[in-house]
């Protein structure tokens, strides 16, 4: 006799028994472990977390995901969240969680490690590493001198159709917020409308903007600095024809933003959670961010990676990151300009 479903059933039986075994064994889910929701990619932070585990003896489990989606998940989970620490790509998501009352105040010995402008005013979260806004350009189309010295130049007719942005990215959004804070709402709206009217090219993320500059699709793009360094590390300098220009003139285009971390209000492991955040600000971890991800260390005494211009030479606009928490107005403005 021939049974149509037999091979199927046999194929199903194997994983089923696996599955039951896995469920019985708790799926490797450890009640005692410190649970970190990380909006930063595994490739960028896994080593740091491993080092923390080894050094502290604390058992850690990490859930990697998209920063915004993890924030939505945390808000949906509320008090019952299994998470103890939230490690985010940008301050905006941390600010939203703080606003929802889900972040605990960090102890002063953690907050004190970082300059005030790189952490929340209420002490809910703290910046861990810095990233600078830069202009990426195609050196085949223009020399560094020809790259405009201010983002506001990009609305000029000579840049029509030649500028690339990733308007739905948190880094771009923080940049627009900084324009609103520094230059006022009208100037910000005028800038965004100007970009839209100037046929600005929009991309889904920073990497695609960078690639577009490499392919000559755009002349100039607005990105964060480390994307370029990562791509050079991956493919070699020769394979990455695009170059970076740091504005260094307090222009909003020279904004320095942070990735940061906070401890969940609902955690029952606040000691370990705080220990972890503090570890992120240790010399070892900061050196790792500087050397491996080419980001800016935020504590005293850790140098920037070779080849990356030091933070104190960047001359970013004077702004307190805690003031960049009016994201919804920024988004409405970006949307009204028709960029997203």
């Amino acid at each position, binding site marked *: 006799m021939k049974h*149509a479903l037999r091979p199927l059933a046999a*194929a199903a039986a194997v994983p089923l028994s696996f599955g039951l075994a896995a*469920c019985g064994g708790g799926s490797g889910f450890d009640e005692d472990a410190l649970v970190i929701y990380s909006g930063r990619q595994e490739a960028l932070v896994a080593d740091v977390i491993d080092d923390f585990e080894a050094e502290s003896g604390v058992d850690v489990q990490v859930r990697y995901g998209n920063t915004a989606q993890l924030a939505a998940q945390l808000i949906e989970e509320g008090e019952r969240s299994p998470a103890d620490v939230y490690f985010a790509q940008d301050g905006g998501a941390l600010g939203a969680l703080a606003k929802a009352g889900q972040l605990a105040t960090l102890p002063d010995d953690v907050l004190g490690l970082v300059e005030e402008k790189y952490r929340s005013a209420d002490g809910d979260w703290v910046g861990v590493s810095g990233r600078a806004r830069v202009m990426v350009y195609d050196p085949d189309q223009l020399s560094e001198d020809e790259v405009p010295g201010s983002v506001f130049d990009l609305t000029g007719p000579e840049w029509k159709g030649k500028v690339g942005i990733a308007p739905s990215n948190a880094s771009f959004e923080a940049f627009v917020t900084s324009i609103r804070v520094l230059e006022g709402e009208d100037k910000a709206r005028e800038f965004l409308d100007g970009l839209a009217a100037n046929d600005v090219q929009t991309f889904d993320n920073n990497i695609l903007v960078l690639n577009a500059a490499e392919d000559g699709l755009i002349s100039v793009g607005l990105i964060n600095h480390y994307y370029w360094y990562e791509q050079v590390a991956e493919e070699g300098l020769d394979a990455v024809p695009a170059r970076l220009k740091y504005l260094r003139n307090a222009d909003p285009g020279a904004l320095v933003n942070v990735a940061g971390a906070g401890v969940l209000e609902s955690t029952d492991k606040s000691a370990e959670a705080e220990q972890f955040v503090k570890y992120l600000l240790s010399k070892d971890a900061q050196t790792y961010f500087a050397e491996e991800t080419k980001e800016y260390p935020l504590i005293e005494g850790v140098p920037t990676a070779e080849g990356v211009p030091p933070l104190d030479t960047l001359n970013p606009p004077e702004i307190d990151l805690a003031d960049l928490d009016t994201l919804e107005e920024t988004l409405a403005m970006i949307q009204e300009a028709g960029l997203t």
Partner: protein
Amino acid sequence: MTGGRRLASRRPPATLLAPATLAALVALLPLGYLVVRALSDGVGGFVDVVARDRTLALVGRSLLLAGVTTAGCLVLGVGLAYLLTRTTFPGRQLVRVLATLPLAIPSYVAAFAWLAAFPRFDGFPASALVLTLCCYPYVLLPVAAALTRTDPATEEVARSLGRNRWQTFRLVTVPEIRPAAAAGALLVALYVLSDFGAVAILRYDVFTRVIYTSYRSSFDPTPAAVLGTLLVALTVLIVWGEHRTRGRAGHSRLGTGSARRHPLVPLRRWTGPAVGAVAAVLSAALLFPLGSLAYWTARGASRQLDVGELVGAGTSTLLVAALGAVVTTALAVPVGVIAARYRGRLGALVEQASYAGHALPGIVVALSLVFFGVRYAYPIYQRTPLLVLAYVVLFLPLAVGAVRSSVAQAPPVLEDVARSLGRTPLGALRDVTLHVAGPGVAAGAALVFLTCMKELPATLLLRPTGMDTLATELWGATEVGEYGRAAPYAALLVLLAALPAVLLGWRRDQLDDGGAT
């Protein structure tokens, strides 16, 4: 036979209706969540967003893309299915396996491969092309199954009545495979509506953009969830449309159900062009993205490979995808059987409800299960069972469509005979109908399996903390531009995807041998 008439008058037995209702309720979970959220925040903002000109324009663009992609998939899927089941196409068994593999390639990976190779090829044409190449197996699989199942006699009658091959195809074969093709087309349309990754990379703005932007903006799940209702409404319209195309024709073969095999159409001098066309499709859909990944591996510095991680991710992927396929198919069986065997409002309602989660972006479904999991099922929250439940919500229609069309083609008289020989209605279903419909049901399970393997948003949010699948690893690597590290994961994904396809092909070979004597 009085089959149609008598079926219409029967109510499905409780033993079918109860699990089918359960399946429908599971599928409706996200909708329940949307309602809870919408009520908690009021509908004012929702109306504001929906009424915006840009929102409506984006809905239009979504529908246009879905329409064009679906048409493309129908052409490719039906054409390939015919070539690979009915003609002397060389190596058709192997090619049939290969032709289903693009399902295993996440559409965002394919999109990235195209964009990387042709930076200026973007927008609508690129999106339509890439999604067509990713989705045509949704049509190919059911149509190929239907083409093998149909009775050769009807086509022979048409030929004997003076119709040529093409007219016969149009007048006899097309109506016979129409339910299968329509079911596949529906899946394509819903996939395109809910896709975000590919279109975002290829820079074609669609409605899902509004939903994703909404998460990024407020980090508040509510507005996005409420916008999701618009997609549900579109889904209802499309499902209803597909239901209408099915018409009233019953497609079960009268009589024994043991149809003869179709004689193969000799391709002769068309062999060359046919092979060329199929090779072109497979190159574009399969070799090209895989080749791109291989190229990046060769070029990238991140190509060091952690074999342990790869094996671990592969094992987890197999586990959750197989569980997803088994549970989804098990729940799809009662729904599909009711849809195929019992006409009536209740059956239609249950079947249509099963589509509710399918057009929603994975993130909305995932958050709805976060919502329910945290509140009502905390012990399984972020454990395998809840993830499997998410796969059920997302992919139930893939299996329901397969079950429905294959059960519809199994003659009901076989169930009568089984009952007269002492089987209960469920026993007859289990011992006869599901065996006769077996290949179709198995194809549905394979479809779910492939789709679960590459699922990303729900897997990210609901997997057990610390568990990695091939899709999450692939995403993690591409997100930071480490394409060299991504390649082995993509390759393993495609390799594992070949498993069910090969398994199904192998069974067909067995049958063919049986038929040779």
